[in-house]
């Protein structure tokens, strides 16, 4: 069961290794990200899943240079974009990667656009900065981009201000801006959380269409497993600042190996008509990251926790070449095997 880590350096578009981020606060140092590794390929979608406070946004923000330093600090790790370091130094060969090589869209389109600039000007801005377009060129390109994002009457809309757009339209405009410089990676931080399901479906379809047109990679941060199932090729599940399970979307959904992943899936309503009125919540709440536990971050909530879980970190147990889980239950000496774990029978009765 215990495989070896595959060495795939150099083959990936983006490779993040052992990223650690902490913040100074009045209450002490918060260790928000505690050693995160992942990689993304062109044309693929990686979903990072986890609850609020697990460090998923901080992970991508540190890559984008969006962590305010101080109080933030990247204490270790590297992020290689086509083999070049992007952490801490966002200038590569004189051109900034943020906005040009990596585009980003945010959760709340209402507050992430400038209310005093027209939509067209905001989309044109990165083109002028990164591509050296003239204002006229950039504005015309902005209209094209709005059109690509399926905003009707793009030429008229480009002259309007954010308050004249609905939430869904603003998110389309954000996407147009993020892809304006043809980035190789689009980072989407909870892009549809603030939107209705009908609009969410439109935005997800749009992201997928644009991905197949441009071949960009997408890093999708979300807590909605339905969105993950719809969009992702690979899934990384984060908890308390660490990735606790990683694999293809099929691995993570159908062969879930970590108790937290199992718990999340059990806490979601299923589409079984016989199943109503009773959910299986994960009791408790995530650990305090001021003083993270010495062992597994999840052990306090884990129904299968053993004494070793409280003492030391589990390593990566590879279940197949791309699917690993960080849980002591995979250790050879463990009496319970994770493939025997089932919420309906053993624990919740």
């Amino acid at each position: 069961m215990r495989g070896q880590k595959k060495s795939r350096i150099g083959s990936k578009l983006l490779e993040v290794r052992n990223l650690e981020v902490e913040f100074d606060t009045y209450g002490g140092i918060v260790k928000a990200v505690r050693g995160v590794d992942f990689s993304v390929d062109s044309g693929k979608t990686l979903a990072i899943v986890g609850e609020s406070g697990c460090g998923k946004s901080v992970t991508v923000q540190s890559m984008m240079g969006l962590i305010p330093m101080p109080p933030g600090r990247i204490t270790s790790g590297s992020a290689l974009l086509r083999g070049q370091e992007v952490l801490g130094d966002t200038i590569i060969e004189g051109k900034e990667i943020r906005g040009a090589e990596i585009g980003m869209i945010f959760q709340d389109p209402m507050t992430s656009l400038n209310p005093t600039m027209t939509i067209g000007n905001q989309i044109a801005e990165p083109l002028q900065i990164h591509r050296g377009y003239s204002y006229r060129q950039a504005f015309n390109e902005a209209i094209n981009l709005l059109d690509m994002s399926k905003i009707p009457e793009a030429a008229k809309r480009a002259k309007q201000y954010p308050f004249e757009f609905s939430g869904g339209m603003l998110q389309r405009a954000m996407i147009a801006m993020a892809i304006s410089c043809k980035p190789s990676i689009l980072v989407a931080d909870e892009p549809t959380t603030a939107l209705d399901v009908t609009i969410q479906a439109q935005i997800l379809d749009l992201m997928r269409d644009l991905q197949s047109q441009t071949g960009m990679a997408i890093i999708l941060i979300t807590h909605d497993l339905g969105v993950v199932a719809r969009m992702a090729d690979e899934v990384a599940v984060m908890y308390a600042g660490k990735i606790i399970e990683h694999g293809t979307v099929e691995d993570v959904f159908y062969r879930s190996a970590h108790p937290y992943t199992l718990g999340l899936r059990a806490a979601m309503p299923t589409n079984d008509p016989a199943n109503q009125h009773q959910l299986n919540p994960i009791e408790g709440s995530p650990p305090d990251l001021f003083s993270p536990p010495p062992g597994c971050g999840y052990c306090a909530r884990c129904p299968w926790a053993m004494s070793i879980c409280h003492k030391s970190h589990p390593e990566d147990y590879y279940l197949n070449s791309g699917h690993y889980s960080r849980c002591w239950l995979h250790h050879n000496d463990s009496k319970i095997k994770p493939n025997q774990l089932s919420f309906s029978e053993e624990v919740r009765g």
Partner: protein
Amino acid sequence: MVNHLEVPILETQNLTRYFDIGKKQVVHAVDGVSISVGEKEIMGLVGESGSGKSTLGKTILGLHNKTSGSVSFRGQALPQKYQSKDFQKWSKKMQMIFQDPYSSLNPRMTVGEIVGEGLRLHSESDAVKVKERVADWLSKVGLQADHMSRYPHEFSGGQRQRIGIARALILEPEFIVCDEPISALDVSVQAQVINLLGELKETMGLTMLFIAHDLSMVRYVSDRMAVMYLGSLMEVGKANEVYFDPKHPYTEVLIGSNPEPDPKVERNRPSTAIQGEIPSPVNVAPGCRFASRCPKVMEVCLQTTPELLPLKDIDRSVACHLYL
């Protein structure tokens, strides 16, 4: 016929709430809604943002004045416009749990003051007894009695929602409106709050109007489900039946856009995204409200507004010309 139709605990007749926004512009937030909720029933209310779900909930409780129509509680008509004595009277029977656990708790009040305020205003003047009841309720919702002296900012989102629940239930109301009680919470915590509400419903015999936009969660929680669009009800029926066998084209679209946590299902799902967005509720045109986005729109839909009428063979009401 089903029992709930005979003894509804809460019933609205043609309930309407318009907002006048000047320049002869009127927002049709709630437009002629007739709904009945039976004893100990959980009625789920779903719809996109802007469909008037929250306004309906608040109008039922008297937090908004009614423009027209009526609401009755156990057959007794509620006042058209609430005065403070009406609130004094009815808030013992009907309460509300709010969506945002961050802004719905006064940051300057301790948890004990927040939860005990209703008691102090309504029945109990003895401070010791208030304290006892508050401690009792805090433990009922899964908090501890010594949390009483703390302030809301010291709690997580899930814990705050529990405080909101304790505040709403301490007067032991019979009917509560839950306005998106879980949409600000994480998945694992959502399930905790849902199960807590379920337990309290069982022990207290509560009746609930459960407003949410998460369809699969509403199916899970509710006995019956009502689908709202632009101020009007589109479909009402048993939650499971509406979810798995939607009749109204809008319900179909809404359920079709809801992603399931199953990659195989999602891979094979055709692109079901409906074009367009919910239109503005200002000065709504005649005809079916959904006509502008409906994939099955007909000539008649643009001219006359379909009424919410029961279907023949099943326990379901639909407002759609396809079924007339």
